């Protein structure tokens, strides 16, 4: 097989899929860093975001990319709402209680999506888009937008975490929650901020999966394992690790079809997760909070 075939049919789709995983994995890692639990509703929250964008596209007749900011805002608000209504009361209970609750929320979100939008497969726009040719590399515009969104959103998040007062407060809360409280940092605001960011990124993740493939009510659930694998691979609590992990999982999934039947593609994330937990449980970039 020649190089361009490898790049065009496996690596580029892998980077795109990886970017989508990365957007979700960053949220998972942030929630773990600050709230210390695994949020199992993350995939279905992404599905929800994808359908909100769809509602804007069909309802308001705007192009998909214009619907993205709306989906981000709505999903962020829903994430904050879910935390206030369901998770907040469980904060002083053992974390496993919240993990189980988040599984319940996952099922609930999926039901809402299925009741409101049905179970049929849908798309943001009809018709087949041919890729452009860049010196032999065949890339679709939507693929460029996906990677650009990852760079833009995660770059913005990194700036926020390292430069702004509240971003630093988030890092402080993740680093040493007791000392953050003793310094007078309001942890309820930090938690809310965490959900705004994680919810927004989640919507972007679901949107770009739908934009590059199709929109289905189960799409987010299927992304959950790869997103967790990415977060753990990169080192839990590390934003840049989650991005790296997402890209590795995405590329590995696409490359795996070269050696195993494509129906088993999804097992790749599981294999990576298992391997990582056995060999280096702290992740590639040493995790902070495990």
């Amino acid at each position, binding site marked *: 097989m020649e190089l361009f075939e490898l790049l065009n049919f496996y690596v580029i789709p892998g980077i795109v899929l990886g970017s989508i995983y990365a957007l979700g994995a960053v949220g998972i890692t942030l929630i773990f860093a600050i709230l210390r639990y695994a949020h199992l509703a993350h995939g279905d929250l992404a599905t929800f975001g994808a359908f909100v964008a769809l509602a804007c596209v069909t309802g308001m007749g705007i192009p998909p990319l214009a619907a993205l900011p709306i989906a981000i805002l709505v999903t962020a608000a829903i994430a904050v709402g879910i935390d206030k209504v369901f998770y907040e009361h469980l904060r002083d209970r053992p974390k496993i209680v919240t993990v189980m609750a988040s599984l319940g929320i996952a099922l609930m979100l999926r039901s809402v999506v299925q009741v409101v939008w049905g179970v049929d497969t849908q798309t943001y726009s009809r018709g087949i888009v041919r890729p452009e040719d860049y010196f032999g590399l065949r890339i679709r515009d939507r693929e460029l937008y996906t990677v650009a969104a990852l760079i833009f959103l995660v770059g913005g998040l990194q700036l926020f975490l390292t430069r702004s007062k509240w971003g630093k407060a988030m890092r402080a809360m993740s680093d*040493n929650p007791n000392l953050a409280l*003793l310094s*007078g940092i309001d942890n309820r605001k930090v938690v809310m901020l965490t959900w705004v960011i994680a919810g927004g990124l989640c919507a972007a993740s679901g949107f770009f999966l739908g934009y590059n493939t199709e929109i289905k009510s189960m799409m987010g659930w299927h992304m959950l394992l790869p997103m967790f694998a990415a977060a753990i691979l990169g080192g839990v609590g590390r934003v840049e690790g989650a991005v790296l992990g997402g890209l590795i999982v995405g590329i590995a999934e696409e490359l795996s079809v070269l050696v195993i039947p494509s129906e088993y593609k999804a097992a790749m994330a599981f294999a990576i997760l298992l391997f990582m937990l056995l060999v280096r449980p702290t992740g590639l970039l040493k995790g902070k909070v495990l």
Partner: protein
Amino acid sequence: MTALLSMEDLTGGYGDADILMDVSLHVDADEIVAIVGPNGAGKSTAMKSVFGLLSIRSGKMLFDGDDITRWAPNRIVQRGICYVPQVDNIFREMSIHENLEMGGFLRKGDLSAAYDRVYTLFPDLKERRRTPAGSLSGGQRQMVAMGRALMLDPKLLLLDEPTAGLSPKYMEQIFQICRDVRDTGVAILLVEQHAKQALAFADRGYVLAAGRNRHEGSGADLLADREVAEMFLGG
């Protein structure tokens, strides 16, 4: 003159069992007061009780004219008491400068005067302001922890074993910094494992044992007291 902080017959603990029994102590403005006593005596607990981290059954705590007995920690911080815990008292992943910034989190507006003050007290820290605090030596970490607590310009600083695990040279340095801090108008209440050195350096001291007051007096008097010497200072 009324005391800056006064703890009156305080009884309380972490849950059901009381750790402190009728503990009373006071700290005047511009004073350095040391609490000493054997391991498990309740020294750290007494300090946490000032900061609202304990369930208090009876007694009260007055600070600068306010009854703060049942205040939440973040309100107490704002009122002018800052606390350096015995362990885990820095943000390891954050730089020295960011640690200080978090210390000044509640302060509105320009922090530069506060940074200047801390960096003047701890010149070592200024050179390494971009270094992650977790990579520093024990003594330097203690300085970061104290610096963080000074950013809000407190009236009272609570230090839990600031010299634990430090060499005698560093201990002297930390004590000297405490005097410098006091000279900028901050009262200090500290818990010390190195009882002799602490009593020699503090203005006054309390000996706590099994959650109760046992002795109190000026540092020199306590050092001279034969019973204190035999029971708590190793003869």
